[in-house]
């Protein structure tokens, strides 16, 4: 386990760079992690991250398909907002564990 300081807060990470304690997450921290990933977060980013966080905190599995049912954005926009591997990137910035879903 590693620790790193973002926005003046010490955050615990696992070896893959995901939060081990989602309650440490704040929007300020997200902005700084996103900057490391080369992203500038907008309201749309935060809206979908809030959806992912709520789903995770409710104990539901995260899948790429669920984004289409989020009512926030569609999958295509999701890929544009978090280019590359969006579900992995978005959960990393949203301070929740890496999804274990295959879909």
């Amino acid at each position: 386990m590693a620790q790193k300081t973002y926005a003046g807060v010490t955050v615990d990470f696992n070896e893959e760079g995901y939060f081990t304690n989602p309650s440490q997450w704040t929007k300020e921290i997200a902005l700084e992690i996103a900057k490391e990933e080369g992203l500038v977060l907008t309201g749309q980013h935060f809206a979908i991250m809030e959806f992912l966080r709520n789903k995770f905190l409710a104990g539901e599995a995260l899948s790429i398909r669920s984004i289409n049912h989020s009512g926030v954005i569609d999958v295509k926009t999701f890929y544009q907002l978090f280019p590359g591997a969006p579900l992995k990137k978005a959960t990393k910035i949203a301070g929740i564990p890496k999804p274990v879903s295959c879909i």
Partner: protein
Amino acid sequence: MSTEQNYAIKKVNLICAKGAIEDVYATLVMGNGAVMEGLETNIFFTFFGLDAIVKTRMDKLHTGVVGNPALRLPGGLRMPSLLGIIPGMEAFTSWMMMGQMAKLDIPPVSEFMDLITAGGGKIYACKLAMDMFKFKKEDLSEHVSGILTIGEFYAHAGGEGSQIIFT
């Protein structure tokens, strides 16, 4: 870690030549998984696999109930091949399988293709199989980027860290 990075898969090229539910879904799960990982993804449908990209057939795939020794009844007993010839058994089994997959949030074929293409994955049809089954371009779903000869497919499949996978 460094050796892992040196040999990382960067591009995935899948070939689907069969049209049963399990054949097509194996391809789509692997294809969508590649897109989700940010890998360049091409999926090539040929022979009976074409059913997965023909508009009127893609969401009506079946699974084989005769000569499928891995097929089991609810409870785990093997399903005798002879039961498979009962009218409606194939449709019923296929419906059961789709239901089980839906529970795991696995989408119908057309929606799966929406997800793959939304992430930049490309879907192709085999020219030879199209000619053989007498399909026209209009018969194919709008997810299909093009109709390729095998030579053109290989040209698309090239590159460092690229893999061709025949499902």
